[in-house]
């Protein structure tokens, strides 16, 4: 089972848009094999950027409004928010280095 914090339609603004650090949101579903396959990579990236970026998960089956709001057409999808804005997005299961590069891009522009 995932060890990441879960966000919902109700908590999305507070936990993601109003967060003081960048937040990486993993849009997933329990039935999605590639989502499960990406979980270890996500854990490693979360550990690598602990304290710099928060990684959370959003179940699209339970929170369709957020999925629709950001036009997420397929899962898994990773959306990176910073300062209340969507800064980067990437679709499909990704390797660690690609997720890390996405974070570095946003973190680099922050510095």
């Amino acid at each position, binding site marked *: 089972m995932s060890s990441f914090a879960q966000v919902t339609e109700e908590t999305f603004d507070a936990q993601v848009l109003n967060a003081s650090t960048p937040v990486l949101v993993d849009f997933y579903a329990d*039935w*999605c*094999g*590639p989502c*499960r*396959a990406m*979980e*270890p*990579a996500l854990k*490693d990236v979360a*550990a*690598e950027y602990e304290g710099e970026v928060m990684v959370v998960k959003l179940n699209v089956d339970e929170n369709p409004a957020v999925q629709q709001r950001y036009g997420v057409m397929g899962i898994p999808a990773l959306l990176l928010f910073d300062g209340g804005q969507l800064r980067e997005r990437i679709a499909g299961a990704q*390797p*660690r*280095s690609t997720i*890390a*590069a996405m974070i*570095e891009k946003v973190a680099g522009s922050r510095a």
Partner: protein
Amino acid sequence: MSAFGVDPAVKAALIAALDKGEPLPMVEPGGASETKLTTWAGEVGLPPAVVLLAARLSPSTGVEVDPEAVTFVRALLLAIEPRADLSGVAHGWLAWSWHYASEPLSRLMPSTEGQLAGAAIAALHACVARGNIVGRLDWRAARTRLSRLAAANDEAGRAAAVLQAGAWDLVRAPGAVDDALSAWESLYRIRIQTADGWGEAEDAKLGALLGEVRPVVRERVGDNPGRGDPQALTVYVDLWRREFTTLMEQHNDPIWDRFKAQQQAVGEALSRLRQEGREALVRLIGETPQPDRQSADGVDGAASHG
């Protein structure tokens, strides 16, 4: 730093299990999931990165255990010196891929920038393979240095992506070896597509065909079950292949013959890489310095050294 060392009794038990035909996770048909492999590695005292590398280098298609995979894993286990610290072996393998593979990655990144960035990463891997520690910020800087190169969708770019994917502390992030091997598949695909003159128009046709197959497969067997359920994965992959082939034949477009030939060529290139990679991994394990007999046997140092 974690020191991984296989207990002699565990080594003997694993070889006996293989000989009895028990499917260890490393030879699981379809490939066991990363979580299953790393958990099992911890239970038997092997570095997770070595187990993942061995599993992904093993031939593991179909629903039966591949005898070639068993032969390889048996050789790998036999090469392990009990209690030797194997935590640098996977790093050594990645350094090998830059310097010593029959087609080393260093040859695929000819630009000065590529040579310098790639050599820097290979040096970090070699450093850990020798038993030293590389900090995570050094790995991070090395990956970042490759970002521009790895964004290019050509052979040099894909080679950079292989290096970048593996540039992690493999004790903290063992799955990075899996990422590196997947990136290698992408490298071969780009090479073969480029040689065939496969471009955007062909990609668009392929995308459209995949779009036709996806809902048919989903309706019959659901979504991709992922690794960990070989039976379900085989059913899923077989149905994809069948539906895809049927549609290709219906469309009767010459590009599908080219696509089939490309698929076969990628498979053959991967097969050669895996074969060579297996041999290198067994060799690297065999070359791991033997553990100090004092710590291995628990005997008094003065007595054992006379």
